[in-house]
C-alpha cells in the first residue's frame, strides 16, 4: 500500500495504531464485527467464518471457526456479532434460520456453543445487549424477533412483527429495555423487552424495506435508518411522534448505517447494490459525502468502526472477498473535488454565475460590466464555526442581464408562432412564411423562402411577382440592411452581361466548385434578362458581404447595426469586411452555390419536373444543413416540413430526426407547446411522430370533490356525482368538454360558445368573467 500514514490514538490504557490495509479472504463476506478491545475482527459469510487479528501492518488470521469436513448450513452466516462485554462470546445468524453462539474459550476445535433453531426462515440479524451478558436478540425473515437468554436452551420471549420480515434489530445504547426493529414493509417498531405482546411505537420510515437501523451512541433519542429507497433518515425518538430530523439521499439502496464514534453528526453508510463505496456523511450537509472510501471492487456488505471511541478507523468487508481497514486520513474528500462555481443561462438569455466569494473579491476593483449588468447581493450560507471541519463556504451570485434589444429571442418565438406549416397550398405557405420573416426583419430568411417558392413551383409568373415583391419590400428596410441598400443601386445599373461575369467570378471563388460550373453553364444557356435582373443583387452581395447576407444569428446582425447606426455606409462595408473575412471564408464557400443557384433556378423555365427534382434537391439540402449548422434549426425544420416529400428523401433520417428534436426542444423551452405539437404532428420521421403517442394519459379531477377521477370520464367514484355536467344545460357532457381555467366551470362546447356570445360571466353563476378564445 502506498498510503503509509500512521496515527496513534491514546484511548485510556490501550492505544490503536495502524494504516490503511487489506487482506484477501477466501470467500465473499456477509458481515463483520470487532471485539471490544479493537484488536480482533470476525468475518462471516456463506463460506467463511474467520477471526483476524488487527496488527499494525497487516491482518493475521487467528482462527477458522468453519470446521468439519462438510460444514452445515449453520455456518452459512447472514450476520455476526461479537459481544461487547464478553471477550469470548460471538453470535451468528444463519441463512437457514439457526441462531448460533460461539465460545472462543472452548478447548476443542469446534467452538460452537449453543444452537437455537426456533426461527423458520433466514435470520437476518443478531444483536447482543450492550451491557447484559446473556441477552441475545434475533430478527428473522419469518417476521419474528426472539430474545434468548444464553443460560437457557430456548428463547425467553418472542416478538411478532405481524408477518412482515424483520431486517434489523438494535438494542438502544442508553435505554436498558428498549430495542428498535426495522421491517421489509418500511416500518420501524420500538419494543420494550419486557412486553412481548405489543410494540411500544411504530412508524413508517421508508417506502420499501428498511435494511438497517442504528442508535446514536451518545444521543439517546436518535435513530438512523437506511432503506431500499436510497435514503438515510435520522429520527428523533424523544418526542411523542417520531420526527424525521435529518435525511440524506444516497445514490443506491442503503445496506448498513453506522454512527461515527465521537462525532455527533457523522455516520457511515454502504450500499447493497451497484455502488461499492463507503460514505461518511455529515447529516447536516446531506448533498455531498463528507468522506468516501473507494477501495472495494464489489458491494460492501459490512462496516464497523474499529473502536467505540475512536473515529479514525473503519473496517469493512465486501463481496469482493477482501477485508479492509480504512484510515480516515486516507479517505477521499468529495468536497475538495466539487466544483464551487455554478453557471446557468436563463430562459431569456440571462446568465447567472455563482462563485466562491474570495475569487470575486480579488477583482472587486474592476469596474462593473458594460451593458448595465446587475450584481446581486452575496448569499452567505452560514457563519464560520471553528469547531466545524467544513471550510467556510460562501458564494457570490452574479446575474448578467443581456441587452434586451440585441439578443432577445423574440424573433424565434414569433416566427415559430406565425409560420404556417400546413393547411394551405404550397406556394401560399411559402409566401406567407416569407412575409412573416420579412416582418420580423430577418431578410436572409425571407429570401431563402422566396427562393424556395421560385425553385419548386414551376410558374414563371409567380417567380417574377415574388421577386418584384421582395424588391419593393427591401426599400424601407435599407436602414437595417444598409449594405444591401448600398449595393442595390449598383446592381440596378448592371448590365445582364455583367452579371454573367460576376456569376463566373463567384464560381471560381468556390472551394467546392464541382457543381458550381455546371450550374453556371446551365444558367448561361437559359438566362433570361428580365428574370435575372432582380437576382443580380443577391448574387453580388454574396461575395462582398458574406456576414450580412447570412449572419450566424439574426440578433448578431442587428446588434452590429445598432452599434453603428450613423457611420457612413461605405466605411461600414470596409469595416465589416475586414474582421470577418477570415472567419467567414468557409461560409462563403458553402453559401455561394446556394445563392448562385437561386439565380439559375429563377431563370430557367422549370417546366420539366424530373429535372427539378434531381437538380434542386442537393442544393436545398446543402442550404438546410448549412442553416442547421449555423444554429438556425428553425429554418431547416420549417423548410423541411413545408417542402415535405419533395426534399425528405434527400436528407438522411438521422439528420432529420436530429433537427426535429432540437427544434422541438427549443420550442418547448420557449413553452410553445402548440407549435411544437404541430411540428411533431407534421414531421415525417417515425421517431418524431411517436413522441406524440407517449404520455398521452390525461388525468382529470372531479369538479365536486377535487380528487382524481379513476376510471370514467363523467362519474366520480368518491362523491358519486356526475363530475362533468354542462353548466348551461346541466346534462352530463360526453365528448368535447370545454372549461374555464379560471373557475373550472364548463360544459358542451357549443353551449358555452353560445353562452359567451351573449354573456361575459360564467354560466354557472360563480361570477367569474370567463373568456372563450
Amino acid at each position, binding site marked *: 500500500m502506498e498510503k503509509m500514514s500512521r496515527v496513534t490514538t491514546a484511548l485510556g490504557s490501550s492505544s490503536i495504531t495502524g494504516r490503511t490495509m487489506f487482506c484477501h479472504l477466501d470467500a465473499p463476506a456477509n458481515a463483520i464485527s470487532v471485539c471490544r478491545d479493537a484488536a480482533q475482527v470476525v468475518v462471516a459469510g456463506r463460506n467463511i467464518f474467520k477471526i483476524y487479528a488487527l496488527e499494525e501492518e497487516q491482518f493475521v488470521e487467528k482462527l477458522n471457526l468453519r470446521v468439519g469436513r462438510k460444514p452445515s448450513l449453520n455456518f452459512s452466516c447472514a450476520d455476526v456479532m461479537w459481544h461487547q462485554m464478553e471477550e469470548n462470546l460471538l453470535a451468528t445468524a444463519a441463512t437457514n434460520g439457526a441462531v448460533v453462539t460461539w465460545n472462543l474459550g472452548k478447548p476443542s476445535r469446534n467452538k460452537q456453543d449453543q444452537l437455537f433453531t426456533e426461527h423458520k426462515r433466514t435470520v437476518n440479524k443478531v444483536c447482543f445487549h450492550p451491557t447484559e451478558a446473556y441477552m441475545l436478540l434475533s430478527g428473522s425473515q419469518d417476521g419474528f424477533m426472539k430474545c434468548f437468554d444464553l443460560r437457557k436452551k430456548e428463547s425467553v420471549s418472542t416478538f411478532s412483527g405481524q408477518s412482515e420480515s424483520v431486517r434489523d434489530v438494535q438494542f438502544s445504547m442508553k435505554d436498558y429495555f428498549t430495542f428498535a426493529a426495522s421491517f421489509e414493509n418500511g416500518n420501524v417498531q420500538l419494543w420494550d423487552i419486557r412486553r412481548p405482546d405489543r410494540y411500544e411505537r411504530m412508524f413508517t420510515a421508508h417506502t420499501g424495506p428498511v435494511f438497517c437501523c442504528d442508535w446514536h451512541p451518545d444521543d439517546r433519542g436518535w435513530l438512523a435508518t437506511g432503506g431500499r429507497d436510497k435514503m438515510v433518515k435520522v429520527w428523533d425518538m424523544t418526542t411523542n411522534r417520531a420526527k424525521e430530523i435529518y435525511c440524506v439521499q444516497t445514490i443506491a439502496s442503503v445496506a448498513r448505517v453506522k454512527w461515527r464514534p465521537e462525532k455527533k453528526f457523522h455516520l457511515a453508510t454502504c450500499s447493497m447494490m451497484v455502488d461499492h463505496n463507503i460514505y461518511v456523511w455529515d447529516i447536516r450537509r446531506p448533498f455531498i459525502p463528507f468522506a468516501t472510501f473507494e477501495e472495494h471492487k*464489489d458491494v460492501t456488505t459490512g462496516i464497523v468502526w474499529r473502536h467505540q471511541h475512536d473515529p479514525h478507523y473503519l473496517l469493512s468487508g465486501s463481496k469482493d472477498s477482501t477485508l479492509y481497514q480504512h484510515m480516515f486520513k486516507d479517505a477521499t474528500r468529495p468536497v475538495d473535488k466539487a466544483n464551487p462555481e455554478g453557471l446557468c443561462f436563463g430562459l431569456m438569455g440571462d446568465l447567472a454565475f455563482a462563485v466562491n466569494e474570495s475569487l470575486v473579491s480579488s477583482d472587486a476593483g474592476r469596474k462593473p460590466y458594460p451593458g448595465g449588468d446587475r450584481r446581486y447581493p452575496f448569499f452567505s450560507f452560514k457563519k464560520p464555526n471553528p469547531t466545524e471541519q467544513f471550510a467556510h463556504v460562501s458564494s457570490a451570485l452574479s446575474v448578467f442581464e443581456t441587452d434586451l434589444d440585441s439578443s432577445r429571442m423574440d424573433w424565434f418565438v414569433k416566427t415559430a408562432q406565425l409560420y404556417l406549416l400546413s393547411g394551405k397550398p404550397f406556394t401560399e405557405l411559402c409566401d406567407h412564411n416569407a412575409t412573416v420573416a420579412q416582418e420580423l426583419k430577418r431578410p436572409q430568411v425571407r429570401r431563402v423562402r422566396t427562393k424556395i417558392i421560385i425553385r419548386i413551383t414551376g410558374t414563371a409568373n409567380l417567380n417574377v411577382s415574388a421577386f418584384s415583391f421582395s424588391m419593393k419590400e427591401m426599400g424601407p428596410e435599407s436602414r437595417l440592411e444598409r449594405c444591401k441598400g448600398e449595393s442595390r443601386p449598383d446592381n440596378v445599373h448592371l448590365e445582364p452581361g455583367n452579371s454573367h461575369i460576376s456569376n463566373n467570378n463567384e464560381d471560381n471563388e468556390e472551394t467546392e466548385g464541382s457543381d458550381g460550373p455546371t450550374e453556371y453553364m446551365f444558367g448561361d444557356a437559359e438566362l433570361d434578362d428580365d428574370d435575372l435582373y432582380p437576382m443580380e443583387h443577391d448574387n453580388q452581395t454574396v461575395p462582398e458581404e458574406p456576414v450580412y447576407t447570412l449572419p450566424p444569428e439574426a440578433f448578431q446582425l442587428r446588434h452590429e447595426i445598432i452599434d453603428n447606426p450613423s457611420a457612413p455606409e461605405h466605411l461600414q462595408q470596409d469595416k465589416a469586411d475586414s474582421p470577418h473575412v477570415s472567419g467567414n471564408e468557409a461560409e462563403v464557400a458553402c453559401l455561394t452555390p446556394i445563392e448562385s443557384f437561386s439565380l439559375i433556378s429563377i431563370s430557367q423555365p422549370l417546366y420539366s419536373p424530373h429535372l427539378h427534382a434531381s437538380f434542386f434537391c442537393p442544393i436545398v439540402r446543402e442550404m438546410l444543413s448549412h442553416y442547421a449548422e449555423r444554429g438556425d434549426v428553425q429554418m431547416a425544420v420549417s423548410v423541411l416540413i413545408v417542402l415535405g416529400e419533395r426534399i425528405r428523401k434527400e436528407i438522411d433520417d438521422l439528420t432529420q430526426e436530429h433537427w426535429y428534436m432540437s427544434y422541438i426542444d427549443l420550442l418547448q423551452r420557449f413553452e410553445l407547446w402548440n407549435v411544437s405539437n404541430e411540428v411533431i404532428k407534421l414531421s415525417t420521421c417515425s421517431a418524431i411522430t411517436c413522441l406524440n403517442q407517449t404520455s398521452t394519459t390525461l388525468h382529470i379531477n372531479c369538479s365536486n370533490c377535487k380528487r382524481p377521477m379513476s376510471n370514467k370520464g363523467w362519474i366520480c367514484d368518491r362523491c358519486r356525482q356526475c363530475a362533468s355536467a354542462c353548466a348551461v344545460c346541466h346534462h352530463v357532457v360526453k365528448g*368535447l368538454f370545454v372549461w374555464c381555467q379560471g373557475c373550472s366551470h364548463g360544459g358542451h362546447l357549443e353551449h358555452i360558445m353560445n353562452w359567451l356570445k351573449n354573456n361575459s360571466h360564467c354560466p354557472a353563476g360563480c361570477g367569474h368573467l370567463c373568456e*372563450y378564445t
Partner: protein
Amino acid sequence: MRHAIAPSENVENNSIAVTDLFKICTHCERLAKKDLGIRIPRPLGSGPSRFIPEKEILQVSKVDASTQAIFEDAFAALHRLDNISLVMSFHPQYLGSFLRTQHYLLQMDGPLPLHYRHYICIMAAARHQCSYLVNLHVNDFLQVGGNTKWLNGLNEAPQKLQQLGEINKILAHRPWLLTKEHIERLLKTEEHSWSLAELIHAVVLLTHYHSLSSFTFGCGIMPEINCDGGHTFRPPSVSQYCVCDIANGNGHANHHDDLLGNQEMCGEVEELMERMKQLQECRDDEEASQEEMATRFEREKTESMLVVTSEDEECVPSRDISRHFEDTSYGYQDFSRRGEQVPTFRAQDYSWEDHGFSLVNRLYPDVGQMLDEKFQMAYNLTYNTMATHKDVDTSMLRRAIWNYIHCMFGIRYDDYDYGEINQLLDRSFKIYIKTMVCSPEKTTKRMYESFWRQFQHSEKVHVNLLLMEARMQAELLYALRAITRYMT
C-alpha cells in the same frame, strides 16, 4: 379554455358476454348466408379458456365495481379485453397489478420504441410456440407501425433484435446458463449495441412473456374470435355439431365424468390438509440434519427431472411461429444433468427484494416497484380456502409451489426444507407444474384436469398465477445476476 375528450362510450359493450354476440342460431345463419352471401365467422369454442367451462368464468356483466373498473382501464389501454384478463378476473386484485405492469411495459415511457417492445414480445412468446400471444402482438406490432418484413423471421429484423435471440433462448429454457459474457456481448459498444436501460426493459419483457406463455397454455386460453385460429368459416352442418358441442368440454357431456371423478378422489383435499397440519406440528419435533436438508434439495431437483412431460403434441400453431426464433431444437434441459455441474443459485445471495429490485428500479424507474408489487401480490394472495374448506392457512402450500419452481431452475433457499414439497405436491401436480413451467406448449387438458380434482377452477387459476410469477422471478433473477456481474 381547454378542450378535453372524455372517454367515449364503448364501455357499454363490455356488458355483453363475448360469445353471446356470436351465438347465432344455425337457422338464421343459414338464412343469412343464403340471402346475403356473408361469411359469418364462428367461434371455435366458447369462453376464454379451453379448460374452464364458460359458466365458471365471471360474466363481464356481473362483476363487482372494482373489477369492472379494472376491465374498463384495460379496455381503455388496449382497446380490447383479452381472454387472459377474463380468466385472471378470478383474482381481480392480482389482475389490476398485472395489467398495470403490462401496460407500463408496453405502452408507457420506456427506453425501447413501441414496435421493438411488441417484437420482443413476439420473440418471447414464439419461443414457447404460443400462437395466441404471438398473434396478439403481431397485430399490435403492425398497429404501432412495425415493419411487416420483420415478421418473416428474426433474420429480417434489425441486427440489434437478432442479438437478443440468444438470451431469449437461454432465458426461456435454461436461464442458469446465462453468464456475464452474454451481457457483455450485447452491451459492447458498436453500432447495434444495447444500452443497459434498454436491456433491462427487454429482459423484463422477455421474462414476462415467457411466463405469460406458461399461463396461456396452463389455463388453455382460447384465441379471441378476431385472431387467427379463433374462428372458423366452416358451416356448422359440416362438422355435425352445434356451438355448444364445440364448447370443448364446456358442455354437459363431461359433467357425468366429473361427478365420477369427484367421488373417486373424495379424500384428496382432506388428505392434503391433514398433511399440512402435520408438517406444521411436527416441525419442531424432528430436526433434520443439515446434510439431510441438502440431500433433500438435491433429491427434489433430480426428482423434478424424472417427472417426464407427456409427449403427445396437441396444438399445431396456425401461424408459422417457428420463424420468429432460431434454433428450434433448444429446449428445457434439466438443471442438474450428469456431466455439467452448474453451481446452485443461493436465493439468499441474490434475492429479488434486496438486489434485483434495486437494479431494475435504477435502470428502468418504477418498473421495479410494479414488479415487486406483482410478485408480492401473487405470493401473498390467499382467500384462506381450499376447495370447500374455509379458514385454511395456505401459506405453506403456496411456498412449496413457489420453491418447487425455483428448485427446478436451480435456486435454493437455505431456510426451506425441501422435504415438504414431497409431502404436499403429488405426482400429477408435479407433472403439471413441470410441463407448464418448462415446456408449456405440451400442457394438455388432461393434465389440467388430473391434478387437484376437487379444487375449484379459480384455485387452479390461482396456482397458475403462482407458477407464472415464480417462473418470471426465477428467470429475472438469473438475468439480473448476470447483469450485476457484468457491472461489477
